[in-house]
């Protein structure tokens, strides 16, 4: 294996990893606000990408419009799901909410299949398909584009959490819900905001990944790798989600080179089981202390 080929594999791993990282971030956003795992995250991604694609087919609009429509659809869907379903279970245990989001995920996937069928559709990409040659290294522009766009989105999220009122409120709720409420923060609004923000991040990830994996009702399964990425980095930690995602993407692409090629699809699960057994708090996570 030459060094150039290795660079190629690592870069495409980083591209897949960026998508995992975005999925992990959107899961962590909701987890930090509501302490629950959103099983429907992947399906929100899938449905909003489909809506954007439909707009493109009907309006013959450019890809930018597709992205905007997908983001708007995701925001609407995230808001509606939180407001109409999750809010009613606000006093329920985390497990009840987990089951509810599992039900939402089943319903959304099935509904998408009824509307758009379960077939796979090609999806246009923002990036050229001709490989870029830098010296002996050949890189796919899609990979570089995905990495660049994801990094830009992550920086935007960082700015949002660091410097905006909403971002500060979200961080406060993540730290201590009751204290945040006492400081006059509307926890309900943070719940809504978290669902909308997570859905929007998912929609961007969906538009970025759809040209690579095709648009289909199954594409929401990428969220499972997002879970693994978030666990790998330490569930609840944003930098952890990014590191975990990138690491998982690279591992997944490198493993078939050294191990039997059928291992690729098991990599996320093996990584998940290993990390949970060896270090359940993840690479960058803090060990939770429990009080009686």
């Amino acid at each position, binding site marked *: 294996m030459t060094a150039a080929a290795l660079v190629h594999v690592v870069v495409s791993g980083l591209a897949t990893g960026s998508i995992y990282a975005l999925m992990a971030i959107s899961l962590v956003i909701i987890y930090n606000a509501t302490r629950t795992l959103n099983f429907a995250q992947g399906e929100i991604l899938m449905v909003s990408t489909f809506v954007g694609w439909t707009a493109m087919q009907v309006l013959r609009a450019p890809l930018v419009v597709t992205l905007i429509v997908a983001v708007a659809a995701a925001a609407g869907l995230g808001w509606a799901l939180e407001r109409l379903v999750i809010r009613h279970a606000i006093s329920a245990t985390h497990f009840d909410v987990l089951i509810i989001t599992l*039900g939402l995920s089943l319903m959304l996937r099935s509904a998408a299949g009824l509307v758009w069928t379960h077939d796979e559709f090609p999806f246009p990409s923002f990036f050229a398909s001709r490989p870029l040659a830098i010296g002996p290294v050949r890189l796919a522009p899609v990979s570089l584009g995905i990495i660049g766009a994801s990094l830009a989105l992550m920086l935007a999220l960082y700015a949002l959490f660091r410097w905006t009122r909403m971002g500060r409120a979200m961080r406060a709720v993540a730290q201590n819900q009751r204290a945040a409420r006492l400081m006059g923060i509307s926890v309900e609004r943070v719940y809504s905001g978290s669902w909308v923000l997570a859905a929007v991040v998912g929609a961007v990830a969906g538009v970025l990944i759809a040209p690579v994996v095709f648009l289909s009702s199954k594409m929401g399964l990428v969220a499972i790798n997002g*879970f693994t990425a978030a666990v790998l980095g330490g569930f609840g930690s944003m930098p952890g989600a990014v590191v975990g995602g990138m690491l998982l993407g690279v591992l997944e692409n490198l493993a078939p080179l050294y191990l039997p090629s059928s291992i690729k699809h098991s990599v996320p699960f093996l990584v998940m089981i290993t990390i949970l057994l060896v270090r359940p708090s993840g690479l960058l996570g803090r060990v939770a202390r429990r009080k009686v």
Partner: protein
Amino acid sequence: MRRAALATGAVLVLALPWAVPRYFVFLASLIVVNSIVAIGLNLLSGYTNQLSFGHAGFLAIGAYAGALLTIHAPALPAPAALLAAGLVTAAVGLALGIPCLRLEGLYLAMATLAFGFVVVEAILNLDWITRGNDGLRVPAAHVGPIALASDTARYYLTVAVAALLILAALNIARTRTGRALLAVRESEIAAQASGVHLAAYKTLAFVLSAFYTGVAGGLFALVVGFLSPDSFDVFLSVDFVAMIIVGGLGSVPGSVLGAAVITTLNDSLAGFQNYRPLIFGAILIVSMLFMPGGIASALRKLSVVGTAGRPRPGPPTAII
């Protein structure tokens, strides 16, 4: 009153094969098998408040263990093969349960989810023994001189095994072990303070749950007669979770009811595959939002209303 109801129920269950067409006997056997899995899952979730999304994996291990024993050791009577299937699965449950002690709620759910995927991959890759995607045909087993060649015979075997396991589950609360498990359910910390060895009992719940599911797996192999890895996918695990959610967390009668509802629904929706997840999702959400205790607690409330608002102080042992 209660005795009469139980006796009527028992007569109905035993008379069923003579009253309905053959296909429904098969369906009833499947319901009984799924009830055992639901009870097993409830032993874990009801006692340690932890949900598993990997019970299809346990079922697969039990099913393949039972099937391979039936194929390679034809002299072995079916109950022995079932016991072996349960023990093998319990051993795997022990191996998974010990490391999973470190995990709580969310993490356990994901680790068991991953376990389910790994089991399916393992079945695919061990194709020299499991025949991989081609599937495994299970020959008819026998109990003593009786060959289990008909749906009716297999139905009676599943009912007999289920009756034993249901009795054990109902009475477990009367034993020292059961009381310790109940204490763990109410409060882990309080239980620990009272001298309950938390790690040992949580592992035990895992092992018991795996044993039940493994026996059910062995029965599944006999009833269905054909095994392939894709019948044990993650959606089956979701079905099992749906059974205990719909039926009632921590309730043995609830587990049976939930298994009956979900299995029947699955069967009647077989022609509408596209709508099945839609309906299942809706059922999960509605039962979580409006019927948190499942059918079992809804029935309990009804019976309380039925006895002229005289609320019975149900002993905690009535649940599981």
